[in-house]
């Protein structure tokens, strides 16, 4: 969000510069069970975003003082590879990764049945190997598939998707250019079975009407992703999509 100062016209004849309609997701491909060592894993491509998620757990909780007597904790960790962006990112954990890991951990604790594993940890590692806007949503979407693949008891999956605003129009799932020069970005994550919102952020500028429109659009995007998540698991474990 550089603040919409750009003169780029992002919508022409009802189509976006990459040919999508305003409420259309980029292409998403999800594959479960792609890693050998992790208890559960997922590879996700979303437009040009590429993310691996891997799960270990329940395991012993380190450091000890983070243990909860009555439940497990979810330790999610979002990392971007140095080569995942045009200007090489320095290796290691920065403030942005720390915040994203924190809110993804909280979102996942909503659906993981943490009370079944007192004092344990469930480790969810997300590696972004190529990044083109929307990686926090991509990582969280991959994370719950990897948790399911690991057989961790959950009440539901969590799909995540953003809506945004470009050229004064509310659109779904900003791409890299729209994100750089857009006017607002609203990442969302839901629990489809209950309709609950477990992750929500907003940067930018939205009128009250635009906000409601964006929230509804992102919600619908999450429901579409939910189908793709379920198909990926069905594809791995049989039972048809």
């Amino acid at each position: 969000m550089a603040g919409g100062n750009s003169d780029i016209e992002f919508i022409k004849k009802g189509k976006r510069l990459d040919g999508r309609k305003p409420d259309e997701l980029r292409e998403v491909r999800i594959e479960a069970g792609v890693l050998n060592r992790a208890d559960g894993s997922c590879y996700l491509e979303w437009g040009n975003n590429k993310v691996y998620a891997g799960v270990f757990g329940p395991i012993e909780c380190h450091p000890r003082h983070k243990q909860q007597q009555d439940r497990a904790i979810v330790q999610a960790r979002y990392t971007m590879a140095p080569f995942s962006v045009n200007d090489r990112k320095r290796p290691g954990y920065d403030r942005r990764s720390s915040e994203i890991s924190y809110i993804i951990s909280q979102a996942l604790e909503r659906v993981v049945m943490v009370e079944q594993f007192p004092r344990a940890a469930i480790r969810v590692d997300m590696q972004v190997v190529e990044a083109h806007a929307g990686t926090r949503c991509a990582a969280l979407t991959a994370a719950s598939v990897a948790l399911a693949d690991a057989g961790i008891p959950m009440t539901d999956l969590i799909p995540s998707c953003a809506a945004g605003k470009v050229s004064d129009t509310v659109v779904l799932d900003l791409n890299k250019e729209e994100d750089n020069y857009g006017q607002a970005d609203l990442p969302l994550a839901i629990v489809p079975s209950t309709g609950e919102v477990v992750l929500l952020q907003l940067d930018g500028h939205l009128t009250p009407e635009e906000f409601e429109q964006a929230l509804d659009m992102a919600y619908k995007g999450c429901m579409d992703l939910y189908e793709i998540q379920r198909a990926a698991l069905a594809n791995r474990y049989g039972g048809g999509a």
Partner: protein
Amino acid sequence: MSSATVANLMRGHIEKLAAQGKRTDGRGANEFRGVSIETGLIGTAEGSSRVSLGDTTVMCGVKLLVGTPYPDSPGRGSMTTTAELACLASEQFEPGPPREPAIELARVVDRGIRESQMIDFEGLCIEHGEKVWIVFIDMHILDHGGNLFDCCTLAAASALGNAKIPNVQHGIADKDVDLPLSCWPISCTFAKLGETIVLDPNHDEETVMSARLTVAHDENGNLRAMQKGYSGAFTPDEIKASVKTARTADKTLRKALKEATK
């Protein structure tokens, strides 16, 4: 009684009150605690404020230093925001580098100011491609009585409103002038207590809340920033309702901010 038992008793008590539209400190569900703003207290800062919201107190200092612009924005100043959860503010705050809650707090306040375009960064260019003003916003939490998000946003806005560009000291112009500000974001934070949602949670309410929602509007009633926290959840309707509530509930704070920065 174990501390877990105490926490559960407190949770039961607070949630029961909330369901009846009541709160431990007697407020209504959508009422802010008392607010006080003092500005210009720190002589070494270009702008400063001490803001109390109930028994939460935050001191904010704004420093303006001359630096070089980023290569990809040669005509714009820049800014950096930090939050220090000082050990004296809460028994829970530990010394050491900032942890996740402090990082989240600083980043949410930062985005609220940055993405709302509160500061006109082009007005902070001294010499295109060579010299710009860098704005440092450093928030020191002195007393953690709940709802740091709203208190910090208000402290940052007050300190920015209080800040003067030190042209004279740096030999850039013969008069110090106000920072170029174009928008005044105010954030309202809601807590979910059981099935009820309340504004401006105090310390005890934060201990038992399941979810947190921060909503920042500008003075025109447009949204500028949001952040949902904790592992509880809101329905979309609850979120829409909270956004509507925030649009009017922020009037008290906005009035105090206006008086403090006039």
